[in-house]
């Protein structure tokens, strides 16, 4: 690690000011940022720890759905009775992130701001028609992820909370990377009345919706409805763990499993 100045503001306003410093970086649970610093791949002048800001914490019921503060740890989401009651699929997604240590530290805000192509939460943000509130504005979940490790956030913009709509039925099915335990493919299926959303993470540079799957499921919400459907392998991620055509295959398999789990 290179040396940096550590700051721990207690209000969002103070954090917003502190992050204006030339090469400052926000610190969430540190599960991505700290390994990056340890490997000397980043050199921030200041680290602004968001962990002491009450406004960024907590899980509330809002508009029938859920509002989850940016500095809410994955383990809190996984174990929250409220989440389990309102959107159980979200709790089970959180329970499947990384390992226990990662879940006890990593935060929702950090995860979506980081926009790792193989992170789990982006699928929930898109499938659950979420909105992301920041210290400056509100961003539709559909517009939030703009590419690999890229989001609609402006420099220094702080994610405050994420609001998820409550689906009638939903489930997340993940095929995890056996080494890192991130998603090789993760599929979040959510049904809102006649509308079905199928959001796919891990497979491509950024989360995307499998629209053909959505149409098929809107007509017939059963796994069989996906028979014969698949996403194109072209343009999907490929690495030593999974080729593009394997990922394409897994998208259909995981989508079916999610539909089955959603019941």
């Amino acid at each position: 690690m290179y040396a940096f100045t550590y700051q721990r503001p207690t209000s969002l306003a103070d954090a917003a000011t502190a992050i204006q410093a030339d090469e400052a970086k926000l610190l969430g649970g540190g599960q991505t940022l700290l390994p990056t610093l340890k490997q000397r791949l980043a050199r921030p002048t200041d680290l602004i720890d968001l962990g002491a800001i009450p406004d960024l914490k907590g899980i509330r019921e809002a508009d029938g759905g859920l509002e989850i503060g940016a500095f809410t740890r994955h383990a809190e989401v996984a174990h929250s009775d409220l989440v389990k009651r309102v959107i159980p699929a979200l709790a089970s997604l959180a329970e499947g992130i990384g390992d226990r240590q990662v879940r006890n530290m990593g935060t929702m805000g950090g995860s979506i701001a980081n926009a790792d192509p193989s992170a789990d939460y982006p699928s929930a943000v898109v499938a659950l028609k979420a909105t992301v509130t920041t210290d400056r504005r509100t961003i539709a979940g559909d517009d939030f992820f703009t590419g690999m490790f890229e989001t609609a956030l402006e420099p220094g913009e702080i994610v405050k909370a994420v609001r998820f709509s409550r689906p009638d039925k939903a489930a997340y099915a993940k095929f995890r990377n056996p080494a890192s335990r991130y998603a090789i493919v993760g599929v979040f299926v959510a049904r809102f009345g006649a509308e079905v959303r199928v959001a796919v993470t891990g497979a491509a540079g950024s989360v995307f919706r499998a629209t053909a799957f959505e149409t098929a499921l809107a007509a017939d919400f059963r796994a069989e409805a996906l028979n014969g459907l698949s996403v194109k392998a072209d343009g999907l991620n490929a690495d030593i763990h999974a080729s593009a055509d394997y990922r394409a295959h897994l998208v259909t398999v995981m989508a079916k499993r999610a539909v089955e789990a959603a019941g």
Partner: protein
Amino acid sequence: MANPNGIGASVRRREDQRFLTGRGNYTDDFKRLNMTHAVHVRSPYAHARILGIDFADAAAMPGVVAVLTGADMEADKVGSLPCGWQIHSKDGSPMKEPPHYPLARDRVRYVGDAVAVVIAETREQARDAAEMVVVDYEELPAVGSSTRAIDGGAPLVHDDAPDNVCFDWHLGDKAAVDAAFANAAHVARIDLVNQRLVPNAMEPRAAMGEYDQSSGEYTLTTTSQNPHVTRLLMGAFVLGIPEHKLRVMAPDVGGGFGSKIFHYGEEAVVTWAARRVGRPVKWTADRSESFLTDAHGRDHVSHAELAMDADGNFLALRVSTLANLGAYLSTFAPSIPTYLYATLLAGQYKTPAIYAEVKAVFTNTSPVDAYRGAGRPEACYLIERLVDVAAGVVGMDKTEIRRRNFVPKEAMPYQTPVALQYDTGDFAKNLDIALPLVDYPGFQRRRAESKARGKLRGIGFATYIEACGIAPSNVAGALGARAGLYECAEVRFHPTGSVTVFTGSHSHGQGHETTFAQIVAERFGIPIENVEIVHGDTNKIPFGMGTYGSRSLAVGGSALVKAMDKVERKARKIAAHMLEAAETDIEVKDGRFTVAGTDKSLGIGDIALQAYVPHNFPLDELEPGLDEQAFYDPKNFTYPNGCHVCELEIDPDTGVTTIVNFAAVDDFGNVINPLIVEGQVHGGLVQGIGQALYENCVYDEESGQLVTGSYMDYCMPRADDVPSFTVRYHEDQPCTHNPLGVKGCGEAGTIGAAAAVMNAVVDALSDYGVTHMDMPATPEKVWRVIRDATPAMAAE
């Protein structure tokens, strides 16, 4: 009265209290006044010429004490890291032994090869400065794999090793094998890869060098499995320090799996640098360095053929292996794919003729050396995969073909055609115990039940035999070992009857502090709390050979028994004197010395006190003191053996393999501590399963870059990847040539497990026409064979 903590008791490991509460004393925990920190500048290229090193900026950085390079070492006449085993090629020529300098001089040969060391007040300062060292490299074409190394026209890793060949060796009777193949009714063939693995000890390597100006003594504290060997190699060959001026300490060591046997360049660098800078120098690897620079394991490419008669009796085995040694010869590298591999190719079978050829090559990758099992897992995997293929060829049940070819118990001692002589073993018994554990007759029913759920079920067997406690020294010497292979022990009774044992074997997770103490407690009838086991310090211990090859108990334990014999002999003399009886009339049992037929007796504690407070002592006949030392050189290897069975289920939609049952039946000879043995087996099995399903060290063939350089890509097995194991052992076949009758258990799990798992994977996929799959059986690989075979299946 049996000692509650004696031989055979499942005593909980005494050392675990300190390990589990964070009170272990590891090399990196050692702090010295005025200590400095070393960080190595390492090559980012697999192969490059060093045109120049500019460290002026680095040397001017805050806190920097020194920046040292290979040129400084050369000026100080620092030598090359020696190789401890010499192999001769078929044509009689000695192996190629290119120099391996602790800091590279003119060329770097793998990513991670050290070119300079920065020494600073803090580790972070050393890192900051290391980034400022500018090395001018001329990149050269690289060799990233063994197959590329021998692909005519490949670049040369060492100019003086033509075709990148280190040696081209063979073992066995080629003519007899050729003749048997000519008359064979059936031949089974296999091509397989035993992939490279990264050892991944929990504690990364670390070393601290100290130099005392007043006495001229050096101290190296290091993560070593054998401190004496490190002292000998580094002192005599690298730094030219006489052994009485060099102390090597290996305190608590957090796992090694072989990777900490070897003498590494960093140890020499910190020891040498400590004198250069006049201050203690410490280096601790980070995990990325461990991936790049710990000696890796395995990395064989093999072709094998088994000749059989019409009834499936094995007639001859022919094996040809290409072994990757990496960029330089690590300490014991040449012995692994030769004497620890080809000599095991008989396995548990009475195959009358065997011929093996091994070509070992240099590549631009991290050196390869012993990794848990070291050669024997490679042999077991090859034989047991081939036997499964053979069962298919002759249409026999996989257990029957094994049983038919086992060396029968009655044939022991059995001379194999590949040099070894097995002393004991009842292989049929292992299988007989294993079969009910897995309900073999019920397998077809379970397979059908899985199929009904859309899953593929397979069962796989592996029988193994290994050779542990490499020995005797004279034989090993004749085969090229440049070291002895004995072990030492000293048993020191203190005046009040407690005991300190000094052992030359080394514990880095094996539990010696418990097991060795049990042996002493049993012998002398004393509480285990009164026995302390000391290891890992060349200033305290007679010359020992350390721990590897499952040798600690078989060799180190035997030395301990010899030392205890000497103690008892002397104690008997003292007792005879004190009890005024003839020595021959003294009976000894559980540490009590009794005059036969009387109630006159003395405990060992009384005798110890007399020995050290010799007020009434026959000084003309006996020296005071009760402190004896012994060296034990084994008569033969020991031969642990067993039968492992794996049952698993494959999800054809994803290719994911789930192990549902795993049974291991082992013959380790006599067992001192069943709990520790079971733990060793569990750990070994997980490592074997890791190789079969998860682990794979991948280098880019062209660039020589390590692709799997972190846990994001290198997949370690985890607790939730493995089932609850069923582990059994029997003690029917104790080793015949060591006093404890023990065989060793440290590597067994790793040796049998990978083959059992892969045989089960292939069995599960047999409906798809699969007869072999290389490890690891990753989900994508499995899914692909299913997908590619499915149209053919549908057409049937």
